[in-house]
């Protein structure tokens, strides 16, 4: 079956820079003196610690128990001793801390008793998904979404897409993986396909990786899997863009592929699934591209938790390297610090120099040339969103589909006025989330307050009625007992005691309610959206700092009265 390819709007063709690192086979990175394994591999996949300081752990031993719906297990990447359990800085633009298990490797690489292969044919679906979770399998394309959640309901999926597009410049980890371990990847992909109940398996690889295409095609020969070379056009590797190219299906913002009968996994994830099911190994290492301004670029198989600074030594960055980018140059970020560990989503670290990545020229006014709109893969009008974001007209921005923006950076890339459009969008999004949150919290507080008043009124009335009844009863009893005791003497305390009790109860209730009135508006959002919020929140911190110290041009614009177009 030869499927025709579809197109998505826009896209750009930045210099690919794949050759720097794609030529050398994957090497195994030596173990660092210290592994820092985060219990939370991303904003979404959490785990609770089940080891103690001083404890000996074996390679592959579970050290973190999955926590919550989105949680996945965390494992010791090698054998050694737990030396600390502490909050450590993470490779995140915000540089926020995360609880980590610090392991000192003993160098013996002793595996925990190797689990036998997991046969998903004999297991139930739930068991298979639990196995994925317990092996700590998350999406390795960078988004680290837990795979057991993504496999979801297991019905209604026709097509499984394997994403080997790797459209970001410089990154070649998937390229090398496909060249070297094509059969394993396909084996993993077939397990995923069976688990998800899909009929069709399509592998999409950008056509600027002919070796990877050939390797995958050779491995797929004779099977039902179809390996398709898609035109190299950033962001063809965006999940929704790749689904569009291969199937013609367009998945709008807020919807998942599953709703449209398609699901998409990264080739690295498929490889991890293969290791987990066929070899019983949890996810404890991944391929990382080290490239850019360095002497020995290449791809390395790196233990999760390896500090970036130890890893970088392998690539031998040149002396004029001024910063390091994590991820690709289009969607990655400049690392605020290097003493952070490689996590499951770390696909690439680029040594950047002013020569390779010249500083952005100064921002100029938008001339409405619509270059950005021509480049936007989501068919947005970025310049309109820019005007709305600048004037903080967030309502309009949402009306113009701000939240459909995938932050791919195509618009910033082509803008002749050098406007950092994506930064404006990230800022607007985080502002809107923050405002929503405040509003929801306020609404809930008001509702609860009103309800409490109502309840208190009701309770008061009920109590009063009861009291009156009781008092009447007492009086009746007293009257029966005789006139020796004055009714007034017993009446007063009887009225006072319940009053005290009432006050105490009210206070306790108020306290409990105060504790309850926390913003809980994220309760009924989809996991994807929750994760997005978490990401945005983290970025927001940084962006706020940026917003507080605007570029000269922006400062000036802010100083002048706003001049919106009529």
């Amino acid at each position: 079956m030869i499927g025709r390819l579809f197109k998505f709007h826009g896209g750009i063709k930045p210099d690919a820079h794949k050759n720097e690192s794609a030529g050398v086979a994957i090497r195994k990175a030596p173990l660092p003196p210290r592994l820092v394994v985060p219990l939370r591999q991303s904003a979404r996949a959490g785990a609770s610690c089940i080891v103690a300081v001083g404890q000996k752990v074996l390679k592959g031993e579970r050290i973190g128990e999955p926590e919550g719906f989105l949680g996945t297990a965390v494992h010791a990447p090698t054998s050694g001793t737990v030396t600390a359990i502490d909050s450590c800085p993470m490779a995140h633009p915000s540089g926020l801390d995360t609880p980590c298990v610090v392991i000192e490797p003993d160098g013996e690489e002793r595996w925990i008793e190797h689990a036998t292969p997991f046969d998903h044919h004999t297991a139930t679906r739930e068991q298979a998904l639990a196995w994925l979770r317990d092996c700590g399998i998350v999406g390795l394309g960078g988004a680290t979404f837990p795979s057991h959640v993504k496999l979801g309901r297991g019905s209604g999926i026709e097509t499984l897409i394997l994403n080997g597009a790797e459209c970001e410049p410089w990154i070649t980890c998937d390229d090398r993986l496909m060249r070297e371990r094509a059969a394993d990847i396909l084996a993993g992909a077939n397990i995923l396909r069976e688990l998800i109940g899909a009929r069709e398996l399509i592998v999409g690889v950008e056509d600027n990786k002919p070796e990877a295409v050939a390797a995958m095609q050779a491995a797929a020969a004779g099977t039902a899997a179809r390996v398709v070379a898609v035109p190299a056009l950033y962001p063809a590797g965006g999940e929704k863009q790749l689904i569009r190219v291969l199937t013609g299906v367009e998945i709008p913002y807020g919807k998942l592929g599953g709703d449209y009968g398609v699901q998409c996994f990264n080739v690295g994830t498929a490889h991890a699934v293969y290791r987990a099911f066929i070899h019983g190994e949890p996810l404890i290492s991944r391929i990382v591209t080290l490239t850019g301004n360095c002497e020995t670029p290449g791809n390395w198989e790196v233990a999760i938790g390896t500090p970036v600074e130890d890893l970088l030594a392998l690539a031998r960055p040149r002396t004029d390297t001024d910063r390091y980018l994590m991820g690709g140059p289009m969607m990655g970020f400049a690392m605020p610090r290097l003493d952070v560990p490689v996590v499951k989503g770390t696909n690439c670290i680029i040594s950047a120099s002013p020569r390779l990545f010249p500083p952005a020229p100064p921002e100029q006014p938008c001339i409405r040339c619509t270059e950005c709109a021509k480049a936007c893969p989501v068919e947005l009008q970025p310049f309109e969103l820019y005007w709305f974001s600048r004037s903080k007209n967030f309502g309009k921005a949402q009306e113009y589909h701000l939240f459909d923006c995938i932050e791919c950076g195509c618009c910033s890339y082509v803008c002749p006025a050098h406007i950092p459009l994506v930064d404006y969008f990230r800022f607007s999004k985080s502002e809107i989330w923050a405002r929503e949150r405040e509003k929801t919290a306020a609404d809930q507080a008001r509702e609860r307050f009103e309800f409490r008043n109502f309840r208190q009124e009701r309770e008061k009335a009920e109590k009063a009625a009861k009291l009156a009844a009781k008092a009447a009863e007492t009086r009746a009893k007293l009257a029966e007992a005789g006139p020796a005791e004055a009714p007034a003497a017993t009446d007063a305390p009887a009225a006072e005691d319940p009053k005290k009790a009432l006050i105490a109860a009210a206070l306790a209730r108020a306290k409990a309610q105060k504790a309850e009135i926390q913003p809980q508006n994220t309760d009924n959002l989809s996991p994807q959206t929750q994760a997005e919020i978490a990401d945005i929140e983290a970025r927001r911190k940084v962006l706020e700092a940026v917003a507080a110290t605007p570029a000269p041009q922006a400062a000036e614009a802010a100083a002048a009265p706003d001049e919106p177009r009529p």
Partner: protein
Amino acid sequence: MIHSPYVRKPVSVQRTMGLVLLALVPGIVAHVVFVGAGVLVNLAISTLTAVAAEALMLRLRKRPVGIAVADLSAVVTAWLVTLCFPPIVPWWLTVCAVLVAIVAVKHLYGGLGQNPFNPAMIAYCSMIVAFPALMSQWPPAGQLSFDTQLSLILGGPRDIDGITGATALDALRTGLRSGVQTVDKVLEGSAFGALGGRGWEWVSIGYVAGGLFLLAMRIITWHMPVAFIGVLAAIAGLFWLVDPGHFASPLFHLASGGAMLAAFFIVTDPVSGATTPRGKLLFAGGIALIAWLIRNFGAYPEGIAFGVLLMNMCVPLLDMKTQPRVFGHRHDLEGGGK
């Protein structure tokens, strides 16, 4: 902290404007060869005025002067003003027009990118209203010596009848309005070449060449030139077929006046024009329609400038009503994911 993307296409506003200037060169060369070199003097005057006015306004508005002057946008405005004016207007008229364009239209609205109206067209309209006579003295192609042109530009005495002829559009109107002549009769006059005004058609061809260059460089999209030329040709053709005695041919309309300059350089001004693909079609088509109406029934021989301004006013509405559908939202309209 600098955020992604860390790579950028090597483009700039300066490059865009520079390419527009380059694209105007063939038309200017044709102008010099077939009409006269006077236009060069006016170009110099307008350029100097524009740059000075731009620098002054930026300083008054406390904006960085260097980078904004270097973006060449003021020079583009200056050249367009000059090229849509008669090439022998006195120097002070050029200065006034450029000041209107740069100071009033551009900077009082907030500078580059903010002006809702096309600066060159406001300049044209205000000058034709204020100085209708000077603005309608077009020299017949190649008949005035450079000295004469220079002296006229420098404010020398204007012997109207002797030095200037009516433009083709002008003559056609006057001829038809007098009621005795038909299109063929009027066009027999010596002022007219094979297509429109004699010699001027070469200038138009020069603009077309420049416009194709801009299309090839992807500075402009096809929408506006195609819609403008298409609508102008269609409506002119329709009336010409019905009554060739009283309506000029589509070819005449396209080759006359500033039609080609407008199609590729004026209508396509990004700042004041519509931005969505459908909006661009409606915008440019609307201008063509208004231009044709004014040429045939209005008070001025050339209607493009008024068409542009009228359509500028519609831009916010056009943009709003023609927003393209967003990825994945097609099924909102058509009820399917595919």
